[in-house]
């Protein structure tokens, strides 16, 4: 349902041009959880942002196609792009401590995309926001609280609720558990699996953690230095890695685990 072809992203920094994403091609099938695996610096987060054209300067998407429902996201005018963002494809970010605006209530932040994309009145949006909170197991009574009044795990739930608010088809999750304690990680992963089914989502899960991929993902794409080095069903890649790089990653995980 989402096809990425030959996507390249460059960063223009003092030292020269960095090819952060180098001609990446893959697709996301309906209802699956696709893992994108890579070490930090492999370009996986940039790839995640590029999918929604959220690459900031000094970065720039230089080529490629991202086809959603037959339309290329990279060619969309700004207005149409905004209708995709949040409504069809939503994102959950790495760090729940910085992903929420500290001066706005969580309710306000969840309601924003609802009002925007569904064109409903604020009262109705508020009800939908409460519903989204309930879906991530947060007491809707806390709708008027500010982010700093929540713990890290709770904040990540808020972020997920925000992403789910408009019932998107695709969720891009960029290392949503790295900033959290291990026990809370597990809760969030369980929550993701639960809502995937409940909301009939397709998920792109970006991480450096092979363990999580193995637990969660149907398929995996392995990235190294901006390029895809291996792709396939999770258990196949894990059990019989073809590339030496993947092999190394798997060996590391085995040693640890």
């Amino acid at each position: 349902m989402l096809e990425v072809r030959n996507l390249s992203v460059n960063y223009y920094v003092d030292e020269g041009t960095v090819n952060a994403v180098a001609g990446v091609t893959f697709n996301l099938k309906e209802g699956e959880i696709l893992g994108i695996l890579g070490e930090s610096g492999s370009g996986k987060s940039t790839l995640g942002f590029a999918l929604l054209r959220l690459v900031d300067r000094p970065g720039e998407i230089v080529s490629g196609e991202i086809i959603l429902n037959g339309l290329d996201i990279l060619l969309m005018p700004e207005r149409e792009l905004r209708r995709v963002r949040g409504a069809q494809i939503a994102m959950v970010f790495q760090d729940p401590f910085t992903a929420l605006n500290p001066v706005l209530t969580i309710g306000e932040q969840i309601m924003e995309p609802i009002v925007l994309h569904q064109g409903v009145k604020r009262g109705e949006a508020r009800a939908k926001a409460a519903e989204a909170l309930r879906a991530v197991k947060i007491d809707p009574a806390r709708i008027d609280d500010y982010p700093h009044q929540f713990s890290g795990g709770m904040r990540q739930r808020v972020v997920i609720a925000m992403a789910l608010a408009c019932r998107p088809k695709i969720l891009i999750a960029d290392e949503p558990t790295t900033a959290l304690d291990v026990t809370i990680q597990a809760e969030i992963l369980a929550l993701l699996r639960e809502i995937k089914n409940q909301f009939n989502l397709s998920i792109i899960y970006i991480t450096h953690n092979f363990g999580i991929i193995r637990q969660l993902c149907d398929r995996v794409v392995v990235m190294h230095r901006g390029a895809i080095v291996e792709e396939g069903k999770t258990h196949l890649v894990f059990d019989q890695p073809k590339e030496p790089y993947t092999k190394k990653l798997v060996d590391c995980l085995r040693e640890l685990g």
Partner: protein
Amino acid sequence: MRKFVLNRLLQIIPLLLGISLLSFLVTRLAPGDPTALFIDPNIDPLELARVRANWGLDQPIFIQYLVWLKNALLLDFGRSYTTGLPVITEIGERLPMTLLLMISSFILTLLITIPVGVISAVKKNSWFDNLFTFISFAGMAIPTFWLGLMLMLVFSVKLHWLPAVGNLALPLITMTIGSLAGLTRYQRGAMLEVLNQEYIRVARAKGLPERVVIFKHALRNALLPTITILGLSLPDLFGGAFVIETIFAWPGMGRLGVQAIFQRNYPTIMGIVMLSAILIIVGNLLADIAYAIVDPRIRYEKK
């Protein structure tokens, strides 16, 4: 919130005591006394001694301070040596003019700073940003009195657009350019920092129009440091006010104050220092309250 404000108000008392003692000592230890105004070969020095005694200046400094403090607690700040008016009256006549200048400059500064800071940050390194970067650096680098005189030469003498003295326009422009520069830089810097925050990307990922991202999500956060800086810049405004008031013959308090220092007009000096200290403290308090209103983290911590 109420406790926070109350707590701050309580802190003002020792602060004012400290300020009054310090300024009393500094002004009294400066050589000379108010009778220096009367130097004239026809005046017998004995007459000066008599006038000094009439003013109580023959008492030890410590006693003088206690007397001042006792009266000040009853809101009696004495009478000016030069005009014979109660200090409160004397200052009261000048304060509105200084406030008019400062507040209008303050508002004008905000009206310019915020949009310019925002646009400069959003369009970083654009011609707009570069132009205002240059203007604000130049604004910071020009001595106020020079700028004031230049503006007067151009707009009053050459172009005849604005009156040189007794009109709000030129002093307002001079003062605003002075404070504008630094604040715009701060606003731009704060905005740049905020724009790099994750929640801005989140807001964009939600599909919000750029306008909403900038003004609702980014600006409110970027205003926080600006509010603090505004509070802190108040003492400088007073300093700038003096130079500007002199050049443009603006009958404000700054000029009265500096003149009082030169004349050793102690009651007036004390009155002005105390009043401006109170204004500065209250200004900072208001800035803190504004900060707390914008930033929920502060608000709730203090609950």
